[in-house]
């Protein structure tokens, strides 16, 4: 674990050095290939004046809302599918149709139906997250050992008790890996949706921030935005999900 971060730090340093040498050498114009010093200055300045913080806040709040709504919906859909074979057929069909469809493809339609702005972004996020979550949850529910359904019968659990005492905890490894996929997909969908849908009152999220910087040909600003996007992605995947796994499925021996 420790050595993973050491290695990443080492290679990160090497890559930065190559970047900086290329920038200083003057092979490319400063306009299109800014040095790390310029990028870091742009990063600190927009952090200092609060513009970047506001955009980060906007993006994170939208994605949190989207993930929350999608998770609740996915839980309802997959539980319904688990308990009713009729619903299972319908939900399976819906998933088969919608899962391969990239959220971006829906954007023109969403623009016409919902306009631009937060609702539109939320819909793109929910679409990109809901179906992989439904797939993972359904697989998880259907792969719990048969013995658990016998135990539920034997101890006379009702459906609700079976759901929260056995079904959901027993399939938690699938749930968490579904959430990981959901996070990765929604983060990508969010940035592209923000670029397309633009801002309301100057708030449009990180995607909008980068897009705007490009309009003004502020390449250090573009890179500053990209760095923030990368760092948030790493932070969520490495810290939030790792913590969640350590406190649950790893502690319980369900995941090595």
């Amino acid at each position, binding site marked *: 674990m420790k050595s993973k971060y050491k290695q990443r730090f080492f290679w990160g340093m090497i890559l930065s050095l190559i970047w900086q040498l290329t920038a200083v050498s003057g092979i490319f114009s400063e306009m299109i290939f800014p040095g790390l010093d310029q990028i870091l200055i742009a990063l600190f300045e927009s952090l200092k004046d609060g513009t970047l913080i506001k955009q980060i806040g906007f993006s994170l709040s939208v994605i949190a809302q989207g993930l929350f709504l999608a998770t609740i919906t996915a839980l309802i859909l997959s539980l319904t599918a688990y308990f009713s074979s009729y619903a299972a057929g319908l939900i399976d069909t819906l998933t088969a149709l919608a899962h391969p469809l990239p959220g971006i493809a829906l954007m023109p339609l969403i623009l016409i139906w919902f306009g631009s702005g937060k609702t539109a972004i939320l819909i793109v996020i929910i679409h990109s997250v809901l179906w992989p979550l439904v797939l993972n949850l359904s697989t998880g529910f259907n792969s719990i*050992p048969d*013995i658990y359904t*016998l*135990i539920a*019968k*034997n*101890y*006379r*659990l009702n459906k609700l008790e079976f759901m929260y*005492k*056995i079904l959901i*905890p*027993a399939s*938690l490894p699938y749930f968490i890996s579904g959430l990981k996929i959901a996070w990765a997909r929604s983060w990508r969908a969010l940035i592209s949706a923000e670029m397309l849908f633009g801002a309301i009152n100057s708030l449009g999220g990180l995607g909008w921030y980068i897009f705007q910087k490009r309009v003004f040909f502020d390449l250090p600003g573009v890179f500053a935005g990209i760095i923030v996007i990368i760092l948030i992605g790493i932070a969520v995947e490495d810290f939030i999900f790792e913590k969640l796994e350590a406190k*649950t499925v790893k*502690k*319980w*021996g*369900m995941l090595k």
Partner: protein
Amino acid sequence: MRSYLELKNVNKSFETEKEKKIALKDINLEIKENEFLTILGPSGCGKSTLLKIIAGFSKTDRGQLLKKGEELAGAGLDRIMLFQDFEQLFSWQKVIDNVEFAVKAAAKNKNKSLSPAQIKEKAHKYLTEVKLAEYQNYYPHQLSGGMKQRAALARTLAAEAEIMLMDEPFGSVDSQTRQELQQLLVQLWQEEERTIIFVTHDIREAVFLSQRIVLMKNEPGEVINIIENKLPYPRIRSSRDFNQLFEKLQSQL
């Protein structure tokens, strides 16, 4: 002892693509209250299927399952199953919480409300009975196979069922541990008033544990003999009587 649990002409078959396999054919069996009964037979003789029918996990094709003269339908907390599979414990719960699960289910079934302290106390009592109280805060994956089965046994006891059904519960642990668990089970059965129906293919296990042994054969699954085991408890595995009974059973299987 009067008849307590009764199986009348129980038949069960499974259909595969090509053929119809008769798992149980005309099983008639009377089980007495507080009796320790083993069902002994080779694999495929339908002994587990029979236990599942008694548990109410699967239905008979023909025949009846009666308790005190009344027909039983479906599974219930009066007949709790102890499985062989280590997975029966909930890996996401500590040992004590696994046992509390049964305490709560039993209380709810009897419409009794217990305080959290009472629930904990009961669970702790059963963990002490199986000599696992020190490990109450462990998660199942931190326990050895034998300890997992002790925990599962504690949970089964905690359901306070009149009838305990055991499907080769010690089949996956090493022979040393198996003997310890067998001894523990006999001791628990003598202390608590419960009826135990124990399925096994291990002749020595049947001789060590039970008062009566139901012998089964396969294809089709049928009862071939029912043998009284009058050896006094605690039984000694190396005694002459023990080995005589073992040989008698072996010759019949």
